[in-house]
């Protein structure tokens, strides 16, 4: 084998054993201790775990304030919740406030919708059957939103009904419907073109026993009146039928009484005993005429309109208006 030692260009005077020693010594001189240094792994040994990072967002905020005024009852607390209309089952925030707390919540601007009335703030008073207060709103920018004052009251008692004419069962529009107690009117309404009416009263009225319902029709028919009793419930339906029966008006010429407290007398002569007084709107069916007086009869509904009683007597012509 041709080596450095035996080649023509080699160093013939050095013995092979010495050459090996020189080679090792030379390497130590040149490399130092690193000549025998440890092998290094070519890659970083990484754990490949998820990086430790914290992300903190700062949003522009919207503060929502709601003031309240208790009209009826004593709520023990209030639940105030904000919803996005697109997900009415999951509140963006829901918080309990005690009666003396200021009702206010703060939300990041971006969680609220900018569409019209796309968000709703709902206040639910706790502790009784209170009305729920809802406020629909939209957001354009950060800041403070003050909702209108929430009036807290227990759910009202509601009277509904319809007023119709006895002949033909047609609805009466524009009838004035009132609930009165021993002091005066506590609630009123007017019938719509279907003859329907609704009257709301504060919750305590559900237990009142001194309530009466009256229906008046500006003199077209006699005033209707009946006692009502909610019997502790919050809803009552009361149909009202007014006017004379067809059977009654077919008995003669029909007149309407045009003045309250019109005397209905036993005889035509002056000073004849008065049976009773008629009201404006009462129907009088005449059989005969004597001077300025008419003889005929009136029909009085008894026992919630199921039974009628007829009375005969005399009325002065000036108190009547001919109908048919």
């Amino acid at each position: 084998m041709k080596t450095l030692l035996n080649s023509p260009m080699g160093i013939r005077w050095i013995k092979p054993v010495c050459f090996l020693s020189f080679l090792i010594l030379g390497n130590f001189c040149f490399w130092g201790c690193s000549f025998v240094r440890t092998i290094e792994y070519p890659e970083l040994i990484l754990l490949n775990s998820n990086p430790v990072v914290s992300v903190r967002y700062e949003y522009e905020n919207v503060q929502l304030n709601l003031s309240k005024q208790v009209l009826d009852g004593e709520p023990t607390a209030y639940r105030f919740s904000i919803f996005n209309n697109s997900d009415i089952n999951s509140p963006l925030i829901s918080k309990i406030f005690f009666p003396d707390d200021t009702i206010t919540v703060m939300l990041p601007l971006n969680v609220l919708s900018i569409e019209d009335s796309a968000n709703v703030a709902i206040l639910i008073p706790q502790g009784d059957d209170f009305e729920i207060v809802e406020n629909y709103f939209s957001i354009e920018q950060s800041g403070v939103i003050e909702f209108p004052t929430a009036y807290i009251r227990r759910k009202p008692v509601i009277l509904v009904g319809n007023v119709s004419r006895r002949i033909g069962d047609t609805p009466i529009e524009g009838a004035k419907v009132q609930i009165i107690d021993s002091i005066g009117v506590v609630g009123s309404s007017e019938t719509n073109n279907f003859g329907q009416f609704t009257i709301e009263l504060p919750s305590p009225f559900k237990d009142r026993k001194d309530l009466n319902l009256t229906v008046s029709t500006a003199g077209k028919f006699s005033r209707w009146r009946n006692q009502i009793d909610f019997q502790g419930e919050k809803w009552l339906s009361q149909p009202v039928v007014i006017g004379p029966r067809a059977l009654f008006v077919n008995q003669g010429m029909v007149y309407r009484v045009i003045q309250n407290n019109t005397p209905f007398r036993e005889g035509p002569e002056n000073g004849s005993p008065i049976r009773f007084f008629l009201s404006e709107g009462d129907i009088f069916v005449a059989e005969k005429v004597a001077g300025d007086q008419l003889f005929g009869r009136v029909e009085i509904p008894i026992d919630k309109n199921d039974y009628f009683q007829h009375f005969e007597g005399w009325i002065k012509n000036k108190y009547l208006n001919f109908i048919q």
Partner: protein
Amino acid sequence: MRNKFFLIFILTISFAKVSIRIESNPHSAHVKIDGEPFGLTPIENISLLPGLYKIDLTLEEFAPIHYSFDLQTAGFAVLRFQLNRIYTVTFNTQEKGLNYELDDQYNWIEEKINLKMEEGIHNLKVFDGDSLVDEKEIWINKPSKIFYELISN
């Protein structure tokens, strides 16, 4: 009219951007977002649209971080990264003919080798041929030397 719509479009985009601050411990790490250099931490007022980004942090003698980040709509966002240190660990053994594997992916057969390891708990597996003969957890929290000895049952 077209210019007006263009202006509104530009304004809408500019208002939707989120201002970001990137911090790291230790600081002075190089930051790249989607491959684009952004300088050294801490970095203030990077303005980005909400969306998905890849953030890379590198610092000498620390393990690099590659983080996929879904930026949400917000006024301001702060990202704070914790960088793990890299330590040199000398592995030494007198056992012959064994294969060594760290964390199921780094293999060697040498009896003495220097490893640059991220701080934390690593898993070492030792194989004789194809059969696993030993498995250990190694906790690295400083430069150290590991003298490995196979203890036979």
